[in-house]
């Protein structure tokens, strides 16, 4: 369908076009190598955001295996995540986050300790300033975090830390941004690549554009990092409830027979991580994979991308 309409001069026309193609969702995404660099910054609000459903644990493990230094910047204190009192949750979640980071090979966890689930009313520019300073200090080539443009993202921390990241990773390279940092011995530095995590299959919001392949060892570490978070994930109560439900249906899981509820919960989470990694792998035509939205170094200059591809020389 289309409306044709001429403007006063009659010289030119504006034509309304509806160009939607719902089949885009089924397009085969490319498997891509890791972007070049030495340092990776994982910028996340929570202790467990590097391990959740669609994961980034596998990708982090792969970065480490391929020689990158990976730092984890945890923006919130996670006081509400878990069934204990806030201060207690804060302590447990930090301990588990450090253990999971170690499994994945992360070099350092930097905690900003903003109050969990209260990033909506905080001065976002202040959070951004902290991230900018750390980007200038650690000089990452790649930042990885929540896709700040994803729709239906109910968690304010994911949205706000994502937004602070979306600006910080390139604004850290500008001399006129937070010049007070330069008194502390850092220089402007911009990261060049952004990798946005798909949180869950929520609507049309996040549509990944790449797969990164994982090997079995990376999936294994991703599994362990995930169920290391006992306070929120591998909880015995989950396994107990599942056993009861299966019993009601006259079923049981032979693999669970010799296990207590804690062990059964761990196994269940490990299966989940393997299943999702295999699922993405099948879609990518390999054994294991994770999917992301990848922003390349010149994606912010869409008009120049073709020109640069044609004219940039590499000696």
């Amino acid at each position, binding site marked *: 369908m289309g409306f044709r309409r001429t403007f006063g001069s009659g010289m030119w026309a504006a034509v309304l076009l509806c160009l939607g193609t719902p089949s885009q969702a089924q397009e085969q995404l490319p498997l891509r190598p890791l972007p070049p660099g030495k340092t990776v910054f994982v910028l996340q609000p929570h202790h467990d955001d590097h391990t959740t459903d669609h994961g980034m644990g596998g990708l982090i493990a792969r970065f480490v295996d391929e020689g990158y230094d990976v730092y984890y910047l945890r923006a919130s204190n996670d006081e509400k995540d878990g069934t204990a009192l806030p201060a207690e949750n804060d302590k447990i979640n930090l301990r588990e986050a450090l253990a999971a980071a170690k499994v994945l090979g992360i070099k350092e966890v930097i905690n900003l300790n903003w109050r969990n689930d209260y990033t909506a009313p905080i001065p976002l520019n202040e959070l951004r300033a902290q991230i900018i300073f750390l980007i200038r200090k650690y000089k990452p080539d790649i930042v990885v975090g929540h896709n700040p443009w994803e729709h239906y993202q109910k968690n304010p921390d994911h949205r706000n830390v994502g937004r602070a990241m979306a600006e910080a990773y390139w604004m850290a390279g500008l001399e006129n941004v937070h010049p007070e940092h330069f008194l502390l011995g850092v220089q402007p530095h911009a990261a060049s690549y952004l990798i946005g995590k798909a949180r869950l299959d929520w609507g049309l919001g996040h549509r990944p554009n790449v797969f990164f392949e994982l090997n079995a060892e990376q999936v294994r570490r991703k599994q362990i990092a995930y169920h290391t978070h006992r306070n929120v994930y591998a909880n015995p109560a989950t396994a107990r409830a599942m056993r009861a439900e299966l019993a009601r249906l006259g079923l049981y899981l032979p693999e669970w027979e010799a296990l207590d509820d804690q062990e059964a919960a761990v196994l269940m989470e490990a299966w989940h991580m393997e299943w999702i990694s295999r699922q993405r792998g099948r879609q990518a035509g390999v054994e294991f994979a994770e999917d992301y939205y990848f922003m390349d170094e010149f994606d912010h200059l869409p008009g120049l991308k073709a020109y640069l591809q044609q004219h940039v*020389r590499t000696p």
Partner: protein
Amino acid sequence: MSRSTLRFFAFWLFGGLLAAQQKVLVISADSANLVLSAGGLLAGMARAGADVWWVRVTNDEKDSWKLAPEETALRSRRESEAAAKLLGFRQVIHLGYRAGELAETPFTTLRDRLVIFIRHYRPNVLFIPNPYTEYDRVLDRFYTGRAAEDAWRAAAIENFVPPFTHLGLAPHRAGEIYYYAQPLDPQRRQAESTSTFVPQPKVVDITPMLETKIRAAQALTTSNEAMAQALKARLETTGRRLPLLDTLAPASIQKLVEENVRGLAKLCAQGTSYSAAEEFHYAGVEFRIPRKYRE
């Protein structure tokens, strides 16, 4: 052709003839994004006789190379006015918000200021940054677009900003709205919804205005130099080079900007018969007429 189709065809023809009296209000965060996303269509409207006013929300103070923010803001202001002149605009209104700091500007403060401009100029066409576009890392555009979209609605409702209503600034509804963005979002051509009242993707032929758009983009010399210098620096630190930027002279930067505008025009023209285009999400008068009566 049915009688109702004919009636609407006549309606559109008449609408076209009215273009000479069009009043257009443009709202932008930074200047470069407006010129690069919508400069061609706006130049065409101005050439066809429309009055175009531009409310520029931020001062672009950080978009420069080795230049203080104050100096950058001043130069960007002059250069934006030069670009506006080339595009045929009547006036630029500079709100002077510090670029890159909009996250903490109260949404309603910005919205209510924009309401005043809409009620004062009483445009029939509004251009706003598309706050729904994805993968644009300059979030000033998102914050401005979000406030401008609500200003479009609020300007038409009497109970918004009552002191100004009291002064005689009557509510006003702009009949048409263009959401603009550079083609960064891979899903930009998918309609958000098939419902009647949702803005739809629209590709506009800008072939006759392409050269004007290039000149207007080139007028933004301060931000253009920043783009060229940052690009050159990035390539150099990774052992690469772009021969065009071997000597960073004004002429090579102008050429880079020309390539950028031509590249954008080509990208937006993909899948159409045009050689140069711009893409928008558009809602016009017809979107207030239920689809069943339009087809």
